[in-house]
């Protein structure tokens, strides 16, 4: 039937299309989107057999049509068999389902009956249960009530007995029991206080507890009791709602009064030592005056203390440590025991007592320590004597060591670090004191040297008046000795100071391993602050001698200048590096911070030495210049008599130069001089005067050639080097002497040029110059220099001469040798 109609639809489809056909049937059409509208598509929904057939007929040949037809028939057949199989399968399944449903219907009916039976039973049970509880209810209520009454009665009994019990506890001093009992009852009493009877009990309890608290407080205040008692006491008081802050304060104030007493003792000692220190010999005089002001203290204590006036710093610190610091430690320990370390229970813990108490303790310790420190610092500041450093160091060590106890007790406290700072400050101060002591020492030794120099100088004056070359020998041998002794003094002093300062870094000293003492103290403190500063000071003060000594020739004796110059030079060559090496070795200086290098110091010392030596040359040159100038300026050179002698001033010049030569020779090496012939004193001079000199100013006598002189002298100058008169000298005797002679002769020249000479005036100058020539050449590095300057002098004198007729050379020589 229907199968007959459908086959035309499904007939031409292939087996593969079965699935899609079913989908189509079950309304899953929307999924087959690619459904073509082509009427020729045999599987499409819009299949039109007519169109399809027409199309086939039109397009295909007969053979193809035949093939197509057989193919289609084959497909239709397979589709039919598929269809049949499907129908059979579905039929069987439907039959078995119907059987199952019938069976289930029977089972459900049986279950329904059983459920009915169950619900009837449950109803019966509920009924019974209600019945039983109804009968038991009355008795249960009674029992509950009775037990409530019983507890209440027990509580009441406790309450009524409480005052008596408390009293008993009080008598037995069982404070802990009393407090715990009271604590238990307190809330109840508080709650029912509106009832008269309870009120009575509460009041009684209050009174007793008040009494108890009083006793506890008393006990606490006495403080004599053992630490354990005390702690118990504090705990009880805390439990009694005694405010913890108040307790702390009380405890601390109590402790403070004791510690204050210690501090006052220290202060009194300090003042006493002050009085005795500053008073010294004046104690006797000042005492009566100060009596009326503070009659009790000064009049009574002073006489007693004056014998033991020298309570040294060690004793002072000892006392401070033994009394104040140890007491302080005790206080801290017990306080911590009481308020901080004690385990707190319950509500007390929540009050944060340890924090509060700790804060208070810190403030307390800090204030007291600050006072103690100020006292210690005052005492340290009084330590001005630099003689024995070990006492101070030991005192500081003890001071520092004892403070460590506090740091152990009170880990967060600033006190130990402040103590270290005090030690550091004291050390710094000490270095400064040593520096100034060294400076004073240096000045004092210089004064000594000055006196030593001045003393023989007087005898020189006397001796030279009586006349004699022995003068210089008497006066000067002490120079090298003075130099070595001065230099040794300074070095020894410096060494002893270093040794003293070294105590600060000794291994057994607790603070020596602090970073300051390991690093800064050694490098910045000792090396820079002490040693380098001192060396710089020496150079500085030496330079000051050059400046302040003034232009007048100066208050500084020239010998001192020479000596200092040599000292500075010695420092430059060896002493500075020696001292610094010594320091570095002793103090194991690790240069974290830049330090002054040895070379810089040496350069400074050398500069100072150079300056001093230059100044020495200048001063000595000026002294001789002054003599020469006076001798030229004061004489009437036009109307002078024929020279018979070398003028005395020239002898004096040679004498002074000789003594300077000796003086310088004592401290400085000979130096290099240009080679000269063995008998330069005579030969060169004769050459100088007979040949060169003659040529030089012979032409000036002939009026025809007025230009020759200047021409010749200019030619001469062209070939000679320029002479710097006040020029730096080298560190040797020859150079120094050359400098002095240059200055003197140049002065001589300039003075001569300002004068006018008569015939004999010129001749006197000739004689004088010859004399100088005879003696001065040996002192200088280059004798040509002396020749040149003397040439210039004689030449200038000849120029300035109204009647230039020079003296015969032989006569000059005779006069000079005679003089």
């Amino acid at each position, binding site marked *: 039937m229907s199968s007959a109609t459908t086959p035309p639809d499904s007939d031409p489809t292939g087996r593969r299309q079965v699935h899609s056909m079913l989908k189509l049937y079950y309304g899953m059409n929307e999924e087959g989107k690619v459904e073509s509208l082509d009427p020729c598509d045999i599987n499409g929904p819009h299949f039109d057999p007519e169109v399809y057939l027409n199309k086939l007929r039109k397009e295909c040949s007969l053979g193809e049509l035949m093939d197509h037809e057989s193919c289609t028939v084959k497909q239709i057949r397979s589709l039919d068999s598929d269809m049949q199989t499907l129908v059979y399968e579905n039929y069987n399944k439907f039959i078995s389902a119907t059987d199952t449903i019938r069976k289930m219907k029977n089972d459900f009916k049986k279950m329904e009956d059983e459920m009915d039976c169950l619900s009837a039973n449950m109803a019966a049970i509920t009924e019974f249960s209600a019945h039983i509880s109804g009968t038991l209810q009355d008795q249960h209520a009674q029992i509950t009530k009775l037990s409530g009454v019983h507890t209440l009665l027990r509580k009441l009994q406790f309450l009524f007995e409480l005052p008596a019990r408390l009293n008993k506890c009080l008598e037995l001093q069982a404070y802990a029991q009393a407090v715990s009992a009271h604590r238990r009852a307190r809330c109840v009493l508080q709650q029912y206080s509106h009832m008269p009877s309870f009120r009575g009990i509460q009041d009684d309890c209050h009174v007793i507890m008040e009494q108890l608290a009083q006793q506890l407080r008393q006990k606490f205040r006495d403080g004599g009791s053992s630490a354990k008692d005390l702690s118990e006491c504090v705990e009880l008081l805390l439990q009694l709602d005694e405010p913890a802050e108040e307790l702390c304060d009380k405890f601390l104030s109590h402790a403070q009064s004791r510690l204050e007493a210690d501090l006052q003792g220290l202060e009194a000692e300090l003042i006493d030592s002050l009085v005795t220190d500053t008073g010294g010999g004046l104690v006797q005089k000042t005492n009566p005056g100060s009596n009326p002001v503070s009659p009790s203290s000064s009049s009574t204590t002073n006489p007693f203390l004056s014998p033991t006036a020298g309570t040294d710093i060690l004793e002072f610190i000892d006392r401070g440590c033994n009394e104040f610091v140890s007491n302080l430690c005790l206080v801290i320990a017990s306080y911590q025991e009481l308020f901080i370390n004690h385990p707190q229970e319950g509500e007390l813990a929540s009050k944060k007592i340890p924090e509060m108490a700790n804060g208070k303790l810190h403030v307390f310790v800090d204030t007291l320590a600050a006072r103690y420190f100020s006292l210690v610092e005052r005492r340290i500041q009084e330590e001005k004597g630099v003689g024995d450093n070990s006492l101070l160091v030991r005192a500081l060590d003890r001071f520092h060591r004892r403070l460590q106890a506090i740091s152990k007790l009170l880990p967060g406290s600033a006190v130990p670090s402040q103590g270290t700072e005090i030690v550091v400050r004291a050390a710094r101060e000490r270095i400064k004191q040593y520096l100034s002591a060294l400076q004073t020492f240096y000045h004092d030794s210089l004064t000594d040297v000055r006196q030593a120099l001045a003393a023989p100088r007087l005898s020189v004056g006397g001796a030279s008046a009586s006349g004699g070359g022995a003068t210089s020998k008497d006066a000067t041998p002490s120079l090298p000795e003075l130099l070595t002794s001065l230099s040794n003094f300074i070095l020894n002093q410096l060494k002893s100071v270093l040794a003293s300062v070294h105590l600060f870094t000794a291994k057994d000293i607790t603070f020596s391993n602090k970073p300051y003492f390991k690093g800064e103290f050694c490098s910045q403190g000792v090396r820079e602050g002490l040693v380098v500063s001192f060396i710089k000071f020496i150079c500085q003060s030496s330079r000051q001698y050059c400046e302040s000594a003034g232009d007048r020739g100066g208050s500084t004796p020239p010998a001192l200048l020479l000596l200092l110059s040599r000292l500075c030079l010695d420092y430059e060559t060896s002493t500075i590096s020696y001292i610094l090496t010594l320091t570095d070795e002793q103090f194991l200086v690790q240069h974290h911070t830049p330090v002054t290098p040895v070379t810089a110091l040496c350069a400074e010392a050398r500069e100072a030495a150079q300056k001093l030596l230059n100044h020495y040359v200048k001063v000595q040159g000026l002294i001789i210049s002054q003599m020469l100038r006076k001798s030229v300026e004061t004489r009437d050179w036009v109307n002078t008599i024929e020279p018979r002698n070398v003028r005395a001033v020239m002898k004096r010049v040679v004498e002074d130069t000789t003594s300077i030569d000796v003086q310088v020779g004592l401290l400085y090496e000979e130096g290099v001089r240009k080679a000269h012939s063995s008998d330069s004193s005579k030969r060169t001079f004769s050459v100088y005067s007979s040949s060169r000199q003659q040529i030089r100013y012979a032409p000036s006598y002939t009026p025809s050639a007025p*230009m020759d002189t200047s021409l010749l002298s200019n030619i001469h*100058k062209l070939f000679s080097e*320029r002479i710097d*008169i006040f020029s730096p000298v080298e560190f040797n005797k020859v150079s120094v002497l050359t400098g002095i002679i240059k200055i003197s002769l140049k002065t001589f020249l300039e003075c001569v*040029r300002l004068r006018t000479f*008569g015939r004999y005036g010129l001749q006197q100058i000739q004689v004088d110059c010859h004399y100088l020539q005879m003696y001065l050449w040996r002192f200088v590095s280059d004798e040509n220099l002396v020749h040149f300057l003397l040439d210039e002098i004689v030449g200038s004198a000849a*120029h*300035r001469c*109204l009647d230039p007729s020079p003296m015969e050379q032989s006569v000059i020589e005779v006069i000079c040798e005679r003089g």
Partner: protein
Amino acid sequence: MKMDDDAPVIYGLEFQARALTAQTAETDAIRFLVGTQSLKFDNQIHIIDFDDENNMINKSVLLHDAGEIWHISGSPADKAVLTTCYSKTSENRVLTCAAVWRMPPEWESGSHESPDDSSNNPQTLELLCHLDNTAHGSVACVLWEPLGDGKRVISLAENHVLLWDLQESSTKATISSTATLEGKGQLKFTAGKWSPHHNSTQLVTANDTAIRGWDLRSMSQIYCIENAHGQLVRDLDFNPNKQYYLASCGDDCKVKFWDVRHINEPVKCLEEHSHWVWSVRYNHSHDQLLLTGSSDSRVILSNMVSISSEPFGHLVDDDDLSDNEENQQEDKGKEPLQDSIIATYEEHEDSVYAVEWSAADPWLFASLSYDGRLVINRVPRALKYRILL
């Protein structure tokens, strides 16, 4: 304009010489007067004209037969008039006298026509008058009234200050007032300077190591710097622009600058020479430039900016006001200059006793050494432009 500095111009005199002055009244030509020192020959005054453009020297010589010249000074009003201090030997006594002279009118024309002849036939100075001083001893120097009309001079003789009035065209000199320095020992003025400030009423003198200021109206001492130098004070000069400042030099090789209101300490001290400093001169226009001559044969030109009247470069004057804004910007950029040595001139081979700035050209100066060598130098151009611009 070439930037490198011109070489110094050197002129040699036949005689030794100490006296040098610029012709003060001459403001057009660069002209210096040199007085010679010779005991045997007639002394001369050399008139040195410097031709800046050609870098050449024209000289004229005038005879000064009165004696060797120790000091020379030109009148500020009349360029033909000058004074000399000369030494005269009579009866075996040497006395230094002073006189006022006039140059003969022909010297100038003569020299220009035939410069070679002038030295052969030198003309003689015309004596106007003697500053008769026999009563007072040797004259150290004669000072004209600065910026004056050429009628007043001061002579320093031994320990006397003599103020002269020149009358009848300078042919007659009368002493109008005197002052005498009293004290123990033989006091003797070595140098002096008439201050251009305070209406020319002040004089400063040096004797030994002391510097003294004088009020010429009352002829009394107004201040005294004892021990101004360690040794003899050789020369003095006033700062032309700062009325209380003066410079001094002496045998301690130092040049010191003083504020005469605070005489305890010098304002500044230079120690550059290696022997006595004989002469110190402020530049007339730019007082930071200072010239010193010394017997170490050197001339040193220093730039003392810090104590000059123009410590921060040049002053803004009227010409600059028009372009003021530019200048202000420039000024801000300028660092205050440092005191420094500008140059050391080593052309001399003997002691230099005198240095002088030209009166006509502020950038030019002359120095004279004992051997008769006159050297004319200029301020280095770089510095000149730095000061000017």
